[in-house]
């Protein structure tokens, strides 16, 4: 798997099969990037469950915060890692243990060893990307901000 470049179809398929996202490193501070991403993804009909040991038991954007992935009582499709590249290793192992289908590391986060373990366990992996930005890009919404989507389509509706 080439983790430098992803095809649009690979990202599209991942976003299509995802309904529930566990966001590790979610923040209750409204001006943090994770809060931006969580709020956006909720509005796009994803269920986002925040994970942050320091906030366990509190609520962020109407969702209960859990201390670890293992504490979440529901089935998780994607684990979205808002931690640094080193910490992503342990998160990957927890994601495998809870049976997540997708391991997604945020912009600036890359851990090739963790990715290899996750892929060996059958997970799909994305690194150094943001699901909010990728959803915005493939839906063409991010183009409203003058951002280059790289998407050209003669179809009336965005494929997503």
């Amino acid at each position: 798997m080439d983790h430098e470049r992803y095809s649009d179809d690979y990202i599209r398929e991942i976003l299509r099969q995802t309904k529930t996202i566990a966001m590790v490193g979610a923040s209750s501070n409204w001006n943090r990037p994770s809060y931006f991403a969580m709020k956006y993804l909720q509005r796009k009909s994803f269920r986002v469950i925040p994970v942050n040991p320091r906030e366990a038991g509190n609520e962020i954007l109407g969702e209960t915060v859990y201390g670890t992935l293992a504490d979440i009582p529901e089935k998780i499709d994607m684990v979205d890692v808002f931690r640094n590249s080193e910490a992503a290793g342990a998160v990957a192992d927890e994601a495998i243990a809870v049976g997540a289908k997708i391991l997604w590391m945020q912009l600036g986060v890359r851990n090739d060893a963790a990715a290899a373990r996750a892929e060996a366990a059958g997970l799909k992996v994305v690194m150094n990307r943001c699901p909010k930005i990728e959803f915005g890009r493939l839906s063409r919404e991010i183009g409203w901000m003058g951002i280059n989507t790289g998407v050209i389509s003669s179809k009336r509706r965005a494929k997503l």
Partner: protein
Amino acid sequence: MTDETNPYGIETLAVHAGASPDPVTGSRATPIHQTTSFVFDDVDHAASLFNLQAFGNIYTRLTNPTVAVLEQRLAGLEGGRGAVAAASGHSAQMMAFHVLMEAGDHFIAAKQLYGGSLTQFGQAFKKFGWDCTTVDATNVQNFRDAMKPNTKAIFIENLANPGGVVVDMEAVAAVAHEAGIPLIVDNTLATPFLCRPFEWGADIAVHSLTKFLGGHGNSLGGMIVESGQFDWAQNDKYPTLTQPNPSYHGLKFFETFGDMAYSVAIRALSLRDLGPALSPTNAFYILNGIETLPLRMERHCDNALKVAEFLESHAKVEWVSYAGLKSSPYYDLGQKYLPRGAGAVFTFGVKGGFESGVTLVENVELFSHLANIGDTRSLIIHPASTTHRQLEEAELIAAGAGPDVVRLSVGIESVDDIIRDLDQALAKV
């Protein structure tokens, strides 16, 4: 069909980048969204938009769907991450610096620039407390020598107006990056069809869309494009991008928006507070022009080379400065940076100096005597008596606009007609 694993060609991007059929009506051409404002779904949606947490439209000073297609078109053509449109090339330059500079900061610019840029940098920017040193860009060491602790950017034209000077962009980018600052390139004369500055290490491209991109001399416009490759947090030079912003409740642009932070900050701060938004109708005209950019540039360059060769052999012409001529000192750099052609704007010296220049521009019949470039029509001007008249004599010569200099912007008419018109006018000199 294609994506980052397999990018589109530039001719395809010129027609399609940023534009899809309208999802509601199916309109294939980009609609002109001639509206000041946009309704919110509800209060929470409005709050998300104002907080920059959702993508969407509030007010045309900040974003507009027609203008956004043009922004994506330029970002696509340049191979950049994002772009912000402006009412003119000049206001694009102002905003390109606005998020980088504090009062008391400094930047370095090439001496070989459009005269209007030299005046903007040397006079208008001085009133903001932005200090600019201009250097001879034909010697890259000059940029290194002019560097100061508070230098925030280097600014060049890769193909300079009007002197036909090609700057060694890759070497200048290396000087900028050694100092931890971005290289800003005015790519107006080359357009992304002839040169893509990000492929040579530039970090920001600015454009006057008024010229070859729009291409038909009917609409003003400007653009800032960012590569998305510059690390704004590598030093403490760019607090607007890296420090909490008080007008967004402590949001940090680079942390939140990453490789698109510069263009988001220009939109959220510079367009918001300085206000030079592009009209949607102008965006529509410019988009139409860009669709034929590759075809036009090929013809512009072919015609320009033939006209330059004609002038070089003309008895009343002292010299011709066109990087496409083998006699040009910039021929080799032109082959490196502009292999598809050296553009269509160049200068020549008419024997007899100032008076001869005036006689020539007053006797052409097909060429239009006016202060623009990059039109389908052939254009002529005598810079010393018009565009560059704000400059002192020494500055005129340094900018390649001495008293004998005549500037042409060669159009896409029949090249024989263009040459015949110059020939008859030169006969009257």
